């Protein structure tokens, strides 16, 4: 184990595992492993967990003595965590149309930054972005790895509606709006794919630890893929990730 998290009470029926440090892929690996280990070791008492950049919230059944629990967990995972195998991770290729009809702010972002629209698309589609965790909206992935040249402040006045599938940038982060939502991020494109389905047992496609890559598509391809998705004929390209 790289570093030992502090364990602190978080309200009456929860506690937090808190790591020191910065947003970091190897720490995220560890958080993903600890998260799955918690379910294995303490399935009896855990209701659910929420991992994030530097913390895991552990929500437990009511009326447990959180103080005693914290002590148990402390010693348990020190002994066990290195034996937990990493879950299988995937790299997904996400089609994104950067046309001005979808990338509402891209022209403005290009103008302000001094980079061309073409350069923006090139830089945005280059990296492998790590999915750190899911939060903010159902299915919304917090992605890490946005090139510094593309960091861009949030809008002063948030939009009342950002359409599902919109791909945006907020400060040093990029992400996909997985539902219609108000929001303050600048929007540079849209994916026809959807990432949240209440009919699935795991309603989100992306899981903490996965990677995504954005692939630029034309408007014609966007329409074609939209139809394929509707008909259930579209398969998102994915490969197993070997870090």
């Amino acid at each position: 184990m790289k570093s030992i998290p502090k364990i602190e009470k978080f309200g009456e029926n929860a506690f937090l595992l808190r790591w020191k440090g910065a947003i970091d892929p190897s720490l995220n690996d560890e958080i993903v492993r600890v998260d799955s280990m918690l379910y294995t070791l303490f399935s009896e008492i855990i209701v659910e967990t929420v991992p994030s950049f530097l913390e895991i919230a552990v929500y437990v059944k009511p009326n447990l003595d959180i103080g005693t629990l914290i002590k148990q967990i402390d010693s348990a995972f020190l002994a066990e965590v290195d034996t937990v195998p990493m879950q299988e991770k995937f790299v997904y290729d996400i089609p994104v149309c950067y046309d001005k009809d979808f990338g509402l702010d891209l022209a403005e972002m290009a103008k302000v930054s001094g980079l061309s629209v073409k350069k923006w698309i090139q830089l945005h589609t280059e990296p492998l972005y790590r999915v750190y965790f899911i939060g903010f909206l159902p299915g919304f992935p917090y992605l890490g790895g946005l090139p510094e040249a593309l960091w861009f402040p949030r809008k002063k006045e948030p939009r009342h509606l950002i359409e599902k599938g919109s791909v945006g940038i907020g400060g040093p982060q990029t992400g996909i709006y997985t539902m219609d939502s108000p929001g303050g991020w600048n929007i540079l494109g849209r994916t026809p794919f959807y990432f949240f389905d209440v009919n699935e047992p795991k309603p989100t496609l992306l899981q903490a630890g996965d990677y995504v890559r954005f692939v630029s598509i034309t408007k014609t391809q966007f329409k074609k893929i939209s139809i394929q998705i509707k008909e259930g004929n579209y398969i998102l390209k994915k490969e197993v990730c070997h870090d």
Partner: protein
Amino acid sequence: MIEVLSTGLYTTVQDMGRYGYRKYGVPLSGFMDGYSAKLANQLLGNPKDCAVLEITLTGPVLIFREETQIVITGAGFTPTLNNQEIFLNMPVEVPMDSKLSFGLPAYGFRGYLAVAGGFKLEKVLGSCSFYKGITKVSHLQKGAVLEINASGKSNIKANASVRVKKDHFTAEILEVLKGPEFEKLSKANRHKLKDFIFTVTSQNNRMAYLLEASTKMSAKEIITAPVQPGTVQITPSGKIMVLMRDAQTTGGYARILQLTEKSINRLAQKKTGDRFRFHFL
């Protein structure tokens, strides 16, 4: 079945909420005031997680097209059944084709209507609780029809009723625990949190209550981290808000306090202009 003649200000179906999906970004949802909602189910002999109607400030008008029993709990509404006033906090027999109205609450903000057997609704991700984007509707629609589960043999105790503590609605003290960023506040600000009076602003809903404080303080943003109902956040510009049942699962503002379950239930009964203080446990 029950027909919705008019909806009231903001009426939703709620149960215990959507547990097990927060790591997928799905809010918990569920009864804002769990104490009152569970009481309604209990008085009818329903399972405690049965779906009920949550009524906000003004109630709906409902027509019952079948005979049933109901219990209304929570805020001090003056409900009428076929223009006859009925009691809160005890089972009421509802004949076929009855019309139920609510009036305005004399105290509190949210009322709960439970029917014997519970409302028959599709569960989405383990819960009937309305939430935009998860369930088909986000609040009750005019003209909607609500089906009732066959309750089988009624467990209702003939004259079961309870005295509800007025405190639940009027207490001006909310119990809190320290939040993850509490220690990052200056000593002076930590003291202020204990002493000052907070007022509920008009920006209050199932997601969060924005408060106005008799003092100014602020805190730096944090690296996005888990939040839950009852988390008190403070923004860099000095806004203080309490997250409620429909809160996001993670957030980027400093988490200075955490309300107890009892306090969340009590805050859910407060409305614009109501004042309170925090009491540290």
